[in-house]
Structure formats: C-alpha cells, structure tokens
C-alpha cells in the first residue's frame, strides 16, 4: 500500500492525500465499530460465533448479513435469508460497473470486486482526480474487507458486555459517512442530479416501511428518469469543441 501511495504522489496534492487517508481511516474505524455491534447482535440471537464471522469474511455487506442473521435467528429458513440478502445486495451490480475503471485489469479486478461496498464506491465516485479515486477505492475497500470481520469477531466475543452501542449515537455513523461522500458529488452534478438524488431518497423512505429490505433502495433508481443522463450533454468533447 505504501509503495502504491508513493507511485501516486506526483499526481496528488499532499493535503488532498492526507485528507483522503484520514477520511479512509475514519470510515474503517467506523466499519470496525459497526462490525462489533453486528457481532454482538448475532450472538444476541443465540447463534454460534462462527456464523456472523463466516458471513463477514465471505459476504462483506453489512445490511445483508444483519438481515440474514435476523431471519435465521428468528427460526426462519436459511434459503429465505439468502434470498433476502441477495435482494439487499443487488445494488452492487451498478456499483461494479461504476467502480471498474479505477480497479485495473486481470487479477486486480478479480480481487478488487470483493472490495466493492457502499463506502469504497463512495470514495471511487467522490475523488477529485483519477489517482485520488483509485487510491480511495483500494484503501477503503481493502480496509473494510479486513476490519469488518475483525470487528464482527470482537463483537461476538464481547457480546453482552457491551450494552447498547446506539446509546452513543453510533447508528448515525453509517448514514453520515455516505452522505458526506455522496451529497457533494450530487451537488457538483448540478440541479438535475441533485433532484434525482432527492426524489430517489424520498421514494426509498416512503416505501421502506412496507416493502422487503433492498427493494426500496432499488426503487430509487426510478428517479434516474429525472436526470435523464442518457441524453447527450453539451459538455461532451465532440459538442463543446
């Protein structure tokens, strides 16, 4: 990782690099804390420690794992739990297309695919230059892949000693992190993108109380119609030159 940073130094501003690495460190720390509360939650359902840990290593997608353990913890079918988890994770398909250019080819894309998550995709979108986007994706993606299972394992071990982590407002960390990365991006995209983001979020919140988890998020995609990004824009090289 350090060699990778050095390679990119000349194309990056020092302050920008420091602020990026600081943000990635905060996101990874938060990921670890979320992992702890997830591990504690899973053992709270009476599940053996290795189930949440195995999920954290093999799936690395918090919302789907929490849903999986909630369903089997309540005595539900594992197949129903897997189907619900896959619905929650379907958003990784567009993420993959979006992140692909910063990942590189060959082995890097095969390994990097596992590091695609909400946080690393946000860094891959939010960076001000290709080098910042690439470093942000890899540092955050690899960080989460390591820190999430470690946090989960710690949480299953600490379990009941922890009490309610939400008392400290930690449930606000995840939405705040994603908003901090995505809203400036939406704002920079102009009124059309901002409107699409607001309409999409409204669709999700309005339907979240009665639709199965995962579906409200996917429905937000209808709001893309507001921005109509498929239309040619005046900023395209062949039109602006």
């Amino acid at each position, binding site marked *: 990782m350090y060699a990778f940073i050095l390679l990119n130094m000349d194309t990056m501003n020092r302050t920008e690099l420091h602020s990026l690495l600081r943000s990635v460190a905060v996101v990874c720390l938060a990921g670890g804390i979320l992992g702890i509360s997830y591990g504690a939650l899973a053992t709270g359902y009476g599940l053996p420690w290795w189930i949440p840990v195995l999920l954290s290593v093999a799936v690395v*997608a918090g919302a789907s794992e929490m849903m999986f353990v909630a369903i089997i913890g309540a005595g539900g079918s594992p197949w129903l739990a897997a189907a619900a988890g896959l619905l929650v994770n379907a958003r990784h398909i567009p993420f993959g297309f979006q992140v692909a250019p910063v990942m590189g080819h060959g082995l890097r894309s095969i390994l990097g695919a*596992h590091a695609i998550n909400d946080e690393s995709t946000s860094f891959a979108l939010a960076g001000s230059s290709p080098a910042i986007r690439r470093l942000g994706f890899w540092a955050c993606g690899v960080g989460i892949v390591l820190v999430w299972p470690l946090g989960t394992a710690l949480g299953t071990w600490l379990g009941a000693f922890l009490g309610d982590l939400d008392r400290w407002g930690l*449930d*606000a960390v995840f939405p705040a992190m994603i908003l*901090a990365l995505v809203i400036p991006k939406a704002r920079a995209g102009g009124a059309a*993108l901002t409107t699409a983001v607001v309409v999409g979020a409204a669709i999700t919140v309005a339907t*979240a109380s009665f639709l199965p988890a995962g579906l409200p*998020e996917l429905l937000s995609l209808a709001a893309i119609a507001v921005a109509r*990004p*498929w239309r040619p824009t005046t900023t395209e090289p062949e039109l602006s030159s």
Partner: protein
Amino acid sequence: MTELLAAIAVLAVGTYTFRATGPLLRKRWKPSPALQRTLEVASVVLLAAVAARSGTFHDGELAGGALIGGAAVAAVLSWIKAPFLVIVGVAVAVTAGLRFAGLG
C-alpha cells in the same frame, strides 16, 4: 447445518457475482458514454437511498427523532461541504444528545 452453510455459500457467491459483473464484463465490452453517465447517476442515487434509509429506519422500523435528526444535520453539513470528520462527529453528537434528551 449443511443447509445453513449452503445458504451462506449462495449469499456469498451471489454477492460476489453482483460485484464482479461490471469489472469482468469491462474487458470485452465498454459502456457507451451515455450508459456510463447513467451508471454514475445510478450509483449516486442508490448510495443516497441507502444513506436515507439507514438514517430514517432502524431494525426495519421508522427510527426515532434522534437518528433522523443526526442524519439530517449530516445532510446539511455535507451540502455546505464541511470536512468529513466534522460531518460524522456532529451527526453522532446530535444523535447521542437527542437520545440522551429522551427523543428515542
């Protein structure tokens, strides 16, 4: 037990397939500029939707005012481009404070 392990494998392999589709297809097929813009907008809209849901719902039910308040403050601070740490720190402080004040 076997059934449980098989279900975990299905979730893991399925999720990896979702993630790898874009990166692996990209070698053979490059999305047009219009499709690239659409996918970028899709990612931004989806992430905002994920954030909006996790800031308003907790364990599948509408969250109390504390979480919603913290997430709303984070949204405003993000709009005015506050530093990342400030956004996350203030959101946590607002949520913990409102919860301490009894707002659920």
